[in-house]
């Protein structure tokens, strides 16, 4: 695909133009907490060397709460009303590669056999322009799970910050190509400029492990003393799963908005919460934090790979950064690697 150069000013102009077309533009919020739909280009926060936001952008493909349909009850029965169709086009700008990479991973589970069109529609309607990452800390480990700070999975195009403050734009997919063709006035052809993306210097994540080896150990060690201590200090808050770009467990609940109407909602849920697997009878197959934490590791690094050929992780390190009691998933992987 083609490559371009786009200046910081032109990104602003492009964004305002896109907004004018009725699209949503989503970028990281300036507080660093989450991703936001912005109202104006001035709200953009494109920073390649910043820490990943606290929440990933999965909320925009798989919202924390979303109506699946609505119901209205009356004396004579029930009427079901469809949720509003998902039509809004969305440009994601400045996502980290580890965020964008979550999209194809999630697509697997939402599309095996039954297709979750709520997810698919949102992906379909989106253009993801990621930003090559110039950040690493003690907690990220993209390189250990087959990604990198310049991984293109899930991106329709990728920006690379140039030394002069402009951006090298590499088109990854057809969709990206089509999108930028609409806004070619803001792009400069790299051929013409004879420009090449500058490989900026950034440290690779320090955490290193061999995912294949880890998987091998997980295959064989569902029962192992190693698991016992892991759950000790875990408070079971599930923060790790909520901030994770790939965790996708959900709950379905009815929420009454008044006494006979309401919506059936699809809500984020977490395998770390003690009620997740608890039967109405009181029986709980995963009745301790140790078992629940093991499930998280196993599901991410073994089951998902067995089933979908993808590791359910992009190495963004959010779970560890946010953990109130300092449970370090990268560290755990390194330890397993050394067994």
């Amino acid at each position: 695909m083609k490559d371009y150069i786009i200046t910081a000013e032109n990104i602003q102009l492009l964004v305002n133009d896109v907004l004018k077309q009725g699209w949503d533009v989503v970028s990281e919020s300036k507080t660093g907490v989450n991703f936001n739909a912005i109202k104006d280009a001035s709200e953009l926060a494109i920073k390649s060397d910043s820490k990943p936001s606290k929440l990933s952008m999965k909320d925009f493909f798989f919202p924390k709460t979303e109506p699946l349909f609505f119901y209205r009850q009356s004396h004579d029965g029930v009427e079901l009303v469809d949720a509003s169709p998902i039509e809004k086009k969305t440009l994601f700008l400045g996502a980290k590669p580890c965020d964008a990479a979550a999209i194809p991973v999630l697509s697997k589970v939402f599309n095996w056999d039954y297709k979750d069109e709520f997810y698919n529609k949102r992906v379909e309607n989106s253009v993801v322009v990621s930003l090559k990452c110039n950040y690493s800390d003690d907690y990220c480990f993209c390189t250990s799970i087959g990604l990198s700070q310049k991984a293109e999975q899930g991106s329709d195009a990728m920006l690379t910050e140039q030394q002069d403050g402009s951006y090298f734009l590499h088109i990854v997919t057809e969709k990206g190509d089509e999108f930028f063709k609409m806004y070619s006035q803001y792009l400069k052809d790299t051929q013409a400029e004879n420009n090449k993306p500058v490989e900026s210097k950034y440290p690779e994540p320090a955490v290193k492990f061999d995912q294949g080896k880890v998987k091998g150990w997980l295959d064989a060690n569902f029962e192992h003393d190693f698991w016992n201590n892991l759950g000790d200090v875990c408070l079971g808050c599930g923060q790790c799963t909520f901030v994770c770009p790939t965790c996708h467990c959900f709950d379905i609940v009815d929420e009454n908005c008044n006494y006979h109407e309401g919506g059936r909602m699809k809500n984020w849920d977490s395998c770390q919460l003690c009620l997740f697997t608890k039967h109405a009878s009181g029986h709980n197959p995963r009745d301790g934090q140790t078992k629940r934490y093991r499930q998280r590791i196993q599901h991410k690094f073994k089951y998902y790979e067995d089933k979908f050929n993808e590791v359910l992780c992009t190495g963004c390190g959010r779970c560890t950064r946010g953990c109130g009691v300092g449970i370090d998933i990268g560290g755990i992987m390194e330890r397993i690697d050394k067994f």
Partner: protein
Amino acid sequence: MAENSFEPKITAFVCNWCTYTGADLAGTSRLKQQTNARLIRLPCTGRIDPVFIMKAFQNGADGVLVSGCHPGDCHYNAGNFHARRRWAMFKEMMDFLGIDNKRLHFSWVSASEGKKWVDVIDGVINTVREQGPFTQYKDINKETEIPVK
């Protein structure tokens, strides 16, 4: 419609022994009142959980009144004393969160205070009417509402 045509919805949580009976007395005495209040009868003010108040606002009440026996008169000895602390804290919190205290009222009305009941309820209705419709909660209740096509 003119603004003054707004008629607030008031949910009143009252105890069975004092205020409900006081409201009965107001009825027996044919003391006219405005029609905006709807009473929910509970055994004692001690039973009134602040969540009831929250639920009432969530479900569209414009104002809430909570009323029970005067201190010392509680049919159950001390339910209203416990309630009093609970309310004070809840009211303070509601205020801090931005829910106008003019929409949340408390009173002691005994079984013999039919007249006081009328004064209280009309006062509450008038105060809430002045505040206008309580839109804050309606605004945040959109997500589970059936979309209007």
